[in-house]
């Protein structure tokens, strides 16, 4: 939620597009860096064949009265360009109304065509959307690597410098206030604008003027901008006394497993005896990453079952080489926090953990998205289309996809946690208020999180030899 992660330089606060989906694979040779776009994306062979085939074959498929979409679109596009009197557009000097923009019309046509599929996950990405989404998938950006926020008095504060970033190497500390960027005062400026000023091409320099509580006056720090991995994992020893560790994962991008491993290793090095794994508000991400990550928790067998277009079911199994610690042996108890915004890849991982008994789930019913999308880059215009290509089922072959009755009312879907614990709007508001009063005090914020507190309590009880009746809670819920 916004209050907890807002102000990332890296990730837009309100994420869009890609994050709503689980992605099977990207048919793209260079996902890591879509910006070095000189490469031509590899086009699947089937598609090449399709493109080369005479489209007359297409027309023959349909009956005569039908409208082949591509030809119809071309005909209408031509008419719009040659005949449309562009009412809204201001006329040019010679009273000529400009013809409507072909690219815009084309994108609208594609959106409209895909809308008839009635599947919100099959969607077209404009070049800009594609670039933005790929940046989120790769988890990289160019900048100094600091997480920013606004204080109550509307000053720009550094919440946290990101590990391995220019900011942390320059000695920037949490709580530093930014006064100016490259000598330009930023008082009263929008946060996005400040971020824009700080960002720039890789290798160039930026100078921040900072204020720090311990120092009088302001001081300058100059940094060279570099590629930074957005932090998507947050971790801490939640309960240092009982050695209960906490790891949260924001999305399943290409940095997820590596960042998770680092966090896990550090907590285990501190003698962790129980783990809270937070997948709340995690909208999903890459399918192979979900498989890899679940392999850290589950001993063997299927992680997820995937059903192809042709009806074939196949499983994606635990990868033994992804057992990074003894976590998979069940040496310490695990509770996974989930909620209604835990979707797709989050549901695969939490489903595998629940089905295999590797841990318990706590929170509220998950989102309910049992669909896998594939991203197909298009060779014309750097755009892409994301298509739902597979259905998936959990390790025990539960279909968790949302279902609706005739009145469009949802009648199922999602995973029911072992322990149902609500997080109310009131809890959210209280947390937000605490955060705004003191962005640095994470403890105060965490104390106001009923789901986390309940998980801590259950784990403490468990470590002390007591048990909490999970089944009873679940029965009460259903």
């Amino acid at each position, binding site marked *: 939620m916004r209050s907890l992660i807002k102000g990332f330089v890296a990730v837009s606060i309100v994420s869009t597009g890609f994050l709503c989906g689980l992605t099977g694979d990207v048919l793209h040779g260079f996902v890591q860096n879509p910006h070095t776009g000189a490469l031509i994306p590899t086009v699947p062979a089937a598609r090449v064949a399709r493109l080369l085939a005479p489209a007359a074959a297409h027309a023959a498929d*349909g009956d005569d*009265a039908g409208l082949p979409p591509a030809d119809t679109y071309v005909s209408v596009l031509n008419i*719009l360009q040659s005949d449309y009197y562009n009412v809204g557009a201001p006329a040019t000097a010679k009273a000529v109304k400009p013809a409507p923009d072909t690219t815009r019309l084309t994108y609208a046509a*594609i959106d409209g065509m895909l809308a008839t599929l009635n599947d919100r996950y099959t969607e077209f990405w404009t070049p800009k959307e594609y670039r933005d989404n790929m940046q989120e998938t790769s988890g990289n950006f160019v900048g100094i690597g600091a997480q920013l926020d606004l204080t109550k008095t509307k000053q720009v504060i550094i919440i946290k410098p990101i590990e391995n970033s220019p900011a942390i190497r320059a000695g920037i500390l949490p709580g530093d206030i930014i006064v100016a960027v490259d000598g330009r005062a930023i008082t009263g400026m929008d946060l996005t604008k400040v971020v824009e000023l700080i960002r720039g091409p890789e290798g160039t320099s930026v100078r921040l003027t900072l204020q720090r509580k311990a120092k009088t006056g302001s001081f300058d720090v100059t940094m060279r901008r570099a590629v930074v991995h957005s932090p998507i994992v947050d971790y801490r020893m939640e309960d240092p006394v009982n050695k209960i560790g906490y790891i949260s994962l924001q999305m399943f991008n290409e940095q997820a497993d590596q960042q998770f491993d680092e966090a896990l290793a550090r907590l285990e090095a501190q003698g962790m005896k129980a783990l809270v794994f937070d997948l709340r508000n995690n909208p999903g991400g890459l399918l192979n990453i979900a498989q890899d990550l679940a392999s850290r928790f589950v001993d063997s067998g299927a992680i997820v079952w995937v059903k192809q*277009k042709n009806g074939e079911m196949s499983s994606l199994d635990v990868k033994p080489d992804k057992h990074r610690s003894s976590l998979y042996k069940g040496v310490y108890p695990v509770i996974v926090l989930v909620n209604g915004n835990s979707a797709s890849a989050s549901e695969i991982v939490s489903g595998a953990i629940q089905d295999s008994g590797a841990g318990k789930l706590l929170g509220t019913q998950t989102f309910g998205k049992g669909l896998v999308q594939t991203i197909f880059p298009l060779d014309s215009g750097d755009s892409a*289309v994301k298509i739902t290509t597979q259905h998936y089922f959990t390790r025990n072959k539960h279909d968790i996809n949302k279902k609706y009755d005739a009145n469009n009312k949802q009648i199922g879907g999602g995973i029911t946690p072992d322990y149902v614990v609500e997080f109310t709007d009131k809890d959210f508001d209280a947390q937000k208020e605490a955060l705004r009063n003191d962005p640095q005090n994470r403890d105060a914020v965490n104390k106001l999180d009923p789901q986390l507190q309940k998980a801590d309590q259950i784990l403490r009880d468990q470590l002390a030899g007591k048990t909490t009746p999970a089944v009873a809670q679940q029965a009460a819920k259903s």
Partner: protein
Amino acid sequence: MTTNDREHRTGRGAAEGVRSESRRKRGGGAIAFVSGVTVATAAAMAVGAQVAHRVPAAATPIVSTAENFTGTVSAAAAPASANAQVAQATPVNGRPGRSSANDPILDASAGSSALDDDESLGTTADKRTFESVYDLVQDHYVDTLPNDTKMAHGAIRSMIASLADPNSFFLDPDQRALLDDESKGKYQGIGAVTTIRGIKQPEGYTEYKIFVVDAIPGSAAEKAGLKPGDVITHVDGKWVLGSDPFLKANKLFDKIRDHDPDDEDAFRKEYESARKRVLGGVGLQSAQMQLRKGIGDKHDLTIQRPGVAAPIKVALTTSQIEAEPVSVRRAPDGKATVIKVNLLTDKAPAAVKTALAGIRTRGVVLDLRNNPGGGIVPAQQIEALFAQNRAFAVEIGHNGKKSKLAASSATATPPRPLVVLVDKGTARTAEALAQSLGEAGVATVIGGRTFGDGMAHTLYSLRDGSGFMLTTGKLLSPRGLDWQALGGITPQVALASGASEEEVLAKAESVLEHPTQAVAAAAPAATSHTGAVAGAARP
């Protein structure tokens, strides 16, 4: 239809050079899926006008010659008008059609091929993008896809909606059938001709409203007292959504995201109210469509009437009516014949001609009050009955080119003193007819200021029975009067709006007796009006 379609495609292909080659291959040389049937135009008739503004050799668009029109008028009786009728009575202005180009040169307009050359590279990439997406979902989408026609409809609907022009819209086959019937004078629903107009708001967006142009005689709308210029604000208790209620919420959201978290509560409130508005509202087009269909359904409307502060609520029951385009009667004192033209359907000219043939009076009153217009061609033909070979209107097309439209070449009846009656319900091609007769000097236009709508729309047909309406130009009078910009045509002799029917006709008869005196008396107003017109028309 097929012939026309094929011609259309071939013609277009010629203009597009290389691109057409690949397209022809793909299409198997078959059929274009869109034929440009024109609102309100006898298709064959259109050829004449098409020549006027499509032949590149002609440096200036020419007024169609008498021969052109003779040829086409006789052809108008031929089956070509099957299409034309579709649009005929569709209550919008029409323009010459594109489907009937039986000479490829007609489509090889210099203007559009230049455009194609400039954009061909980008356009080709766009087309490939569309095809790739279609092919990819065919190959990879996990569930069953909708059929091709449904997907094509989705594409066109969205493409046309993206123009953000509420008078350009897609029509599924059912809706298309309704419009076809309207073009023949057969109305369902409340029986009112409506139009959508945008009003720019100071906040930087456009608020659209549904305006009543006219209630059709005998319709539910007429019985309920709907008047030209009324705005329909609610249908069955639902808001007619004329703008995006989320616009304001989005602005607030940008503010809190970037700058001021204190506005979050304001945003939540605004968002909630926008959501309620959307849930409790009905879209412009769907409201308009609801009102033009159904027999025996009950609707509650809320109306905003200019000059009336309180909203007016009316309840009506939809019905089907077939409006007679023309009715004839004698004026009370018997000196003039009143020919009332209710609609400009393609039956109207013949009816007017018959009426004129049987006339026993010296003077004629052509009553265009409460006439929402219709096709261009019927209007041209009616003009020709009174003023042969005179200019009818000037159409400004998308490329800024002005095309002159002439009165058709129908045999004119012997000249008679003529008065044209207009009022606030005189709209579109009816306005064009009134103004052109006035400018030709054959009639005195009397009455109230007209509705003020000069947009030309064309109805295009797709071969599965669906179609789309497109704004394709704007009509000006032969002298360049932009009556839309002026908010209507000011008659040469003004009549008080509250005048009784007897007073109106008495005035008409007195003008018929002494036309020059009447106009001279009204001269000061007329002159200043003309001055304003000249300024407006040639900026």
